[in-house]
């Protein structure tokens, strides 16, 4: 089965690198799902849960805040300001800020 090679990168480290069968990411305007064979895409990221379905079953969740997502030839790269198991404390909600800017 085809799989996605996923990298989640924050400025100071690679948070996750590995294979996944599906990715659900919090894009700027709502969740976006990515399966193998997805067309090349660049999208802004808002704030929320990033879910990676592992190829061998099970899934991994991260909380990400802001950044950009790139999909190309089954390579998914998510550059984010923050990624961790928990939402960051005392951070402004970039989704709210960003949606205001869009209008």
């Amino acid at each position, binding site marked *: 089965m085809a799989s996605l090679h996923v990298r989640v*990168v924050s*400025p100071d480290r690679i948070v996750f690198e590995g294979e996944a069968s599906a990715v659900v990411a919090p894009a700027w*305007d709502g969740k976006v799902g990515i399966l193998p064979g997805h067309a090349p895409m*660049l999208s802004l990221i808002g704030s929320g849960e990033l879910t990676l379905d592992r190829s061998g079953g099970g899934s991994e969740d991260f909380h990400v805040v802001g950044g*950009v997502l790139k999909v190309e030839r089954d390579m998914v*790269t998510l550059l984010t300001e923050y990624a961790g198991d928990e939402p960051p404390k005392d951070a402004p909600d970039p989704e709210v800020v960003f949606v205001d800017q869009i209008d």
Partner: protein
Amino acid sequence: MAGDADVKRRIKSVENTRQITRTMELVATSKLKKASDRVQAARPYADALQEIVGGLYSPALSEKYPILRRPKEVSRAAVVLLTANRGLCGGFNSNLIKQARNLMEDLRAQGIETELHIAGKKGVAYFRFRGEEITTEKVNVGDSPTVDDAEAIIAPVRERFENGQVDAVYLVSSKFKSAMSTPPHTRDLLPISGDENASSADVYILSPSGDMILERILPVYIRNAVYTALVENAAAEQGARRSAMKSATDNAGDVLEHLTRTYNRARQAQITQEIAEIVGGSAALE
């Protein structure tokens, strides 16, 4: 034998110095390891960001965004200098300061006004002593710089560029080639020099749009350039300190050897003289 006691005291003092420099060398070595790990860890983000910005950039956009503007004539440039907060790291700080001074002299020779933005106590102290005006300064960046540190340094500069108060921004910092080689390096931060022929934006689905993504990502790109420079600078500082302290320790060893010889020779001479006196004395009695 006042000379004797003197030499002995100096031996003690050099021994103490060697102890300290050796400890500093060891501390720098362990900090260097951590710092160079951070340099490695910061690379994937920087590379990926570079790729995205390079792919999206097109000259037509520069009309729209102040951060992308390309002034036809540069009348005022900002020099952002990153130095260490502490000394005892050989020529590290003075090399950086010299690089910044040369850059400023070059710019002024071309009739361009300059302004200084400095992070690091050593740079601030030097230029304040010289009576240069420092536009912004920051002296609380630690051994492990954060993204927030980078933002705090560059935010005012970026604003000045967007407002048109400065037309170019240069970043002076140390490149971390290896622990032994940390040359000072000048980077043109703004205006952004995009890869003119690498526009691959057409093949992507862009959400919400190329412009929007650029607008959000460019400040991050600039900030990350500063962050990378800070991290490299921190590693370079430890590398420079390790080399400096290693040669200080070696030098202390040499001085110690020389002093010990002097001391032994003096002691030997004294004993010889005393024997000669005793022999002379007993010969006189016979």
